């Protein structure tokens, strides 16, 4: 059981240079992998390919040997770097969470999502508060793989530690495969079982 990128190439169009050239990566269930690279090397692009948001120009993305399902909830969920761009600005946050499953009281508690926030619009919450919704939303959907693209850089260190502790506990419980894109080596050493340079 693994999520795999096989010799993947990507570019936005034929006039543009390659963003990714012949990259391969394998992520097993229950494994936590940290991905390092300088900015602009295509880490986020690879994250979007793995979660099925972009299709590779060449090469393929395989989940347990099959292409990613094109219908239903994707078992690979991507959590973005910028929560303010990943949430529908016209939806109240309660609706954002309910879209991916019924609310679980214990998860709201664990992420420190307060009841009154569910009535609010995204612009009325801070980036750190929004990111908790993004992580909770991905976990509520029943994902098997989580791709975390710099999910905690915009959070204060206490909230970072709180969120990662919840994510790690869930990852352990559900045997999630986890890919963490990060620039922070101290953080990677804390949360991951393996590190890869792109």
């Amino acid at each position, binding site marked *: 059981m693994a999520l795999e990128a096989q010799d993947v190439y990507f570019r936005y169009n034929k006039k543009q240079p390659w963003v990714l050239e012949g990259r391969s990566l394998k992520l097993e269930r229950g494994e936590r992998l940290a991905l390092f690279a300088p900015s602009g090397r295509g880490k986020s692009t690879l994250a979007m390919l793995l979660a099925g948001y972009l299709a590779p120009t060449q090469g393929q993305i395989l989940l347990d040997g099959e292409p990613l399902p094109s219908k239903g909830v994707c078992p690979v969920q991507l959590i973005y*770097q*910028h929560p*303010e761009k990943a949430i529908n600005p016209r939806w109240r946050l309660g609706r954002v969470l309910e879209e991916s499953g019924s609310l679980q009281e214990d998860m709201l508690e664990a992420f*420190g999502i307060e009841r009154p926030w569910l009535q609010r619009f995204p612009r009325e919450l801070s980036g*750190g508060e929004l990111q908790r919704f993004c992580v909770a939303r991905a976990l509520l959907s029943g994902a098997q793989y989580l791709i975390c693209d710099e999910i905690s*850089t915009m959070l*204060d260190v*206490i909230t*970072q530690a709180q969120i990662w502790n919840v994510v790690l506990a869930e990852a352990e419980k559900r045997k999630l495969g986890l890919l963490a894109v990060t*620039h922070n080596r101290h953080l990677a050493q804390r949360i991951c079982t393996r590190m890869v340079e792109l």
Partner: protein
Amino acid sequence: MNLLEIQDLSVSFRMYGRGLEQTDLQVISGLHLAVRPGEIVAIAGSSGSGKSLLASAILGILPGNAAVYGQMLYKGEELTPQRQQRLRGSEIALVPQSVAYLDPLMKVGPQTGGPAEKRRSLFKRFGLPTQTEQLYPFQLSGGMARRVLVSTALITDAKLIIADEPTPGMSLDQALEALRLFREMADEGKAVLLITHDIDLAFEFADRVAVFYAGTTVETAPASDFKTGPEALRHPYSKALWRALPQNGFTPIEGFQPYAGSLPKGCLFAPRCPYKTEQCIKEVPPVQEVRGGEVRCYHGT
């Protein structure tokens, strides 16, 4: 003399409820901060503690339903809305927090403004290829967009730069380069207000660190105290921040910052504080001088 001085600042938002019901939501209260020329003051603290709102308040770009009380002085003179309008973008520059501040329909080169030569040399120092100028924001990675945003502020001749989380998405060496540039500007006699969550980096470059919690400053201390460790710090929240760093234990304290609508009556940190006493719950502690720093705590040592 202080370049920027903020005294007892409070910011509240008027929220509309059902019908004609209105409530004021106080998001910053009793905030003090001073920035001297030649100094980098880092602002650390919890997400949603009002760090970005402070930046907006200084620049006068808060939304229309915000009310600002207290005193803000720039070069010893009051920052009136007219003066803010005149100064922002020229004397006071902002590195915005969100990469969504870039115009999505404009190539990034023209967006940075300023002379092309200066732009090229800044891009070069940041390791951005020359072709970056010809790209649209959606074609940039998160870290590239950050470096473009920092360039837009550094290209001006501003005396005060307010950098609102300039480093997320940058690799370590790029983040260090950005901070080195800020340090150089400060050494030239300018001043930088650096809002950041990369506090371990900030400790290395800043002169002083102000710690925010729930809309107020709980501690202002020399950056060297943060390098020394929790024993040199004065406020329990600052100590908790230090201990939550991945390299220092990664242990979060329990609980959450109170929501602006339901702030505790006394010390804002009391509900999570291991050292709280009766007095902390009843009264807001005043700012006290302790060992060359300022702390808002009855038990700060």
